């Protein structure tokens, strides 16, 4: 039974029944103002796996940014004497076929993948929030036009388009890649945001704001988006995992991050044909990628359950 009694019966909402609120203003003030945030935190903390995932993800970031200081090798140094040797005290993860230190390259790649993932996820969600809420709020031809764009982008094979565009962008900043990933990643969320806007804009508080003469974009910013915040936060988290995977697969095939820059995708792509004979050049990058994406999606799921108890498995 996943329904809590409050949803079935007209039990008093614990946050709304403060008998003396009018006369005794501050009796419950401190206790109750945190209710929602604390409730979410409490539900989130109940997910042991999610907690572990948070810890692991923090470790990943620390590893990616502090790890390179542990070794003397840079990701673009060549050590011709130790080509394809296994892990050792000098080269923690061994050396690849060109004599580059796998540890330094993997960590640098992890850095790049994480930063691309986080950036692209943020921009994707921002796109989605803007387009979805504008389409939903203004309706009519604005809506028709934006929905048409969404449908168009959904039927375009994004991977192919990215592959075709990447030679044009080759050599330019990796930020272009972030932008491209976002342009092809916002549509589904955009639709969800549009749907939520359609229902939120019928709420009386939106009408109230309209009847006060508040401008349309102010209404979107002040009343609509904050009320979808939980959806957007969850969406960013889940998108981090999705974009990391998208970026690595592009880079793996040589379309994403270009040499001499390194991402987890290029690390894996460079060493794919040696994966069976010299597993050390492939294994570490692969394992770090799997762990990162797994952690991010576990956190995303737990966050969604915590914010919206009816969506998942969270029961009393």
């Amino acid at each position: 039974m996943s329904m809590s009694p409050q949803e079935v019966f007209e039990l008093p909402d614990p946050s709304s029944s403060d008998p003396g609120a009018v006369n005794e203003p501050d009796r419950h003030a401190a206790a109750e103002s945190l209710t929602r945030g604390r409730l979410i935190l409490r539900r989130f903390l109940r997910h042991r796996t999610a907690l572990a995932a948070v810890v692991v993800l923090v470790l990943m970031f620390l590893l990616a940014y502090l790890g390179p200081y542990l070794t003397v090798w840079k990701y673009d140094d060549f050590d011709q004497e130790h080509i394809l040797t296994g892990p050792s005290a000098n080269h923690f993860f061994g050396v690849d076929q060109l004599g580059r230190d796998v540890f330094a390259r993997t960590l640098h790649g992890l850095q790049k993948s994480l930063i691309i993932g986080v950036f692209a996820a943020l921009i994707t969600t921002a796109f989605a929030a803007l387009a979805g809420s504008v389409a939903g709020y203004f309706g009519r031809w604005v809506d028709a036009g934006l929905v048409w764009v969404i449908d168009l982008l959904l039927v375009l094979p994004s991977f192919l388009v990215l592959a075709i565009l990447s030679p044009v962008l080759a050599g330019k900043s990796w930020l272009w890649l972030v932008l491209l990933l976002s342009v092809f990643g916002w549509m589904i969320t955009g639709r969800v945001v549009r749907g939520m806007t359609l229902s939120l804009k019928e709420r009386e508080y939106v009408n109230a704001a309209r009847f006060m003469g508040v401008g349309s974009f102010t209404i979107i910013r002040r009343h609509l988006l904050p009320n979808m915040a939980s959806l957007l936060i969850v969406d960013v988290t889940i998108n981090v995992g999705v974009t990391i995977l998208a970026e690595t697969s592009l880079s793996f095939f040589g379309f994403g991050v270009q040499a001499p820059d390194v991402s987890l995708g290029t690390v894996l792509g460079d060493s794919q044909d040696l994966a069976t004979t010299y597993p050390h050049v492939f294994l570490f990058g692969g394992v770090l990628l799997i762990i990162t994406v797994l952690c991010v999606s576990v956190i995303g799921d737990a966050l969604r359950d915590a914010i919206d108890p009816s969506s998942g498995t969270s029961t009393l």
Partner: protein
Amino acid sequence: MSQTFSAAEPAPPADSTSPLLEVHDLSVSFRSEAGQVNAVRGVTYTVNPGETVAIVGESGSGKSVSSLAVMGLLPSSATVTGSIRFKGQDLLSLNDRQLSKLRGSGLSMIFQDPLSALTPVYTIGDQIAEAVRIHQDVSKSQAARRAVELLDLVGIPNPQLRAGSFPHEFSGGMRQRAMIAMSIANDPDLIIADEPTTALDVTIQAQVLDVLKKAKEATNAATVLITHDLGVVAGFADRVMVMYAGKAVETATVDDIFYHPRMPYTMGLLGSIPRMDVEEKEPLIPIEGTPPSLLNLPPGCPFEPRCPIAVEQCRQTEPGLDPTDRDSHFAACHRSLEIAQRQWSAADVFVRPTVPEAAAAGIAREERPVVLQLQDLHRAFPIRKGAVIRRTVGSVRAVDGVSLDIREGETLGLVGESGCGKTTTIMEIMNLLKPQQGRIVVLGQDTASLKPDDRRTMRSDLSIVFQDPMASLDPRMPIGDILAEPMWVQKMPDAKIKARTAELLKMVGLSPEHASRYPAEFSGGQRQRIGIARALALDPKLVVLDEPVSALDVSIQAGVINLLDELKSRMGLSYLFVAHDLSVIRHIADRVAVMYLGRIVEIGTSKDIFDRPSHPYTQALLSAIPLPDPEKERTRQRILLTGDLPSPTDVPSGCRFSSRCFVFAEQLDADQRARCQSEDPGLYPMNADHGAACHFAQVREVV
């Protein structure tokens, strides 16, 4: 605590010496994030065969939970203790399969929301037939025939045909009838009706209550009626149990509850309902505060914090349900005998607030300036069909020629059933745009000629309070910002906004420190006060109130109505008060306009409309409203309208009310009927400032 109370009237049927349902010391609790919620705390009652017991209480009092426990329909997270005996059989010891056998045949239930209680994918007939076949060994065709019979019994026109309809093709009232048909399909001994008419309009409510009475007669079943509406109780119940904070606080016969209440809470409830049959306007008696949280109840009487006559003993021990001075009348109050001795009534126990006289009251209506004028306002919504090329196939004429005016310092009550175009009318006013047809003049300015800047300025003179206090405040904004928003729009300086916010909070009975809190921390009544404060932020001239109290419990409602009254006289406001509850309208409005199908059918002073209603629709509407007075209820003649509101896509020709009009159906000859069906009646003047849109308008007293 364990006393049961037996009926004084009517005498229990001779064949049954033992009660049908005995609930003894029933407690229900739920576990929640915040702790254990004790929803029901030791309730004891009995229901004798054939009698009607009403359980009355505000939301959160445990009235629904206690009945769901009887039906065995509580979720598994609930802990139920005590005993529930139905015909001597302990229901709590039965497993789900045994209970299922009993549900429907022995016990049956009618739910509040008939849309969610019916399965959308099966026809109404199939669903009733299914209920028949579960408990009776009959063939499919027999069950289908029985379903049609039952639909006929509950007054569904054309039952043979309608049995093949799906729930969404039925209106709310017809769905509730279908639910009643289903609940009596197997001749139950006990029907539990959980707020069966709360979601319905008054004329439909009257029809459904009538059907329920008929169904009761047909099956001779006992009924447990759960409701918050004391008017319904007065006309329907034999005995009443009042619940508060999970406990029964008073039980007695219906007359005793209404005429000799012995518990301050019951008295407060009775004092806080606006009465349609009381002409004199005096402030209502609100019960201060809100019901306690059932989470951590302090010791003592749960009503003590709100009770004006509480003594030290009330804070120490919780009173049991003890006998009072009257027969079979029990009350949970330490001072109930004292109340009886001193013959206290609600007005003695509670303080009746005073409301200052309005400044405008002294000036004749004609001399006061007009703040809002509607002239022949129309609004139609096109119905479009087709996926690619959308063509217009018809239109919903939501507002179809409304004219009215509101003068300074007066309250116009706009009443009508759902779907009559009230909301569309006020949305048209609030949009401040040029209407499709007709004119809207606000404070002397025609909205058609407004420039965007003028429109923004005008918004400070015109504001709105919405129905649902939960939905009208942005949950993500602190109260201070919510109140400041209209002032931001008018670009007021920050320091002024801050001072004004504090002032507004004080004005509506909250404290300025509340500004930093969020809406979720307030109760429904407090939230509505915040909504009112927001509407008054810019010192408007006209406030549109869209059902401002219909979502509130009665004891809270009274306080909000008094506040509106007081603010109106203090600030010289004019109100356009939209409501479906005529008792509230009678209390607050100076003039009343009755709307039917997009048009005003009768308009006049409050006194004219309530004492001398002339349009048949107004008469039916007034007579459909149950009065919280058992004696009056028993003698009252009710005008029952047939059928539902016609669809505004297909307005009847001539008089739009003729399809449901009882005068048309019973009193007119053929020539007169032809006139009704061909000629659209305008507003005929009845006397000064009173008009009715009926060719054969006649005054008839119905209250």
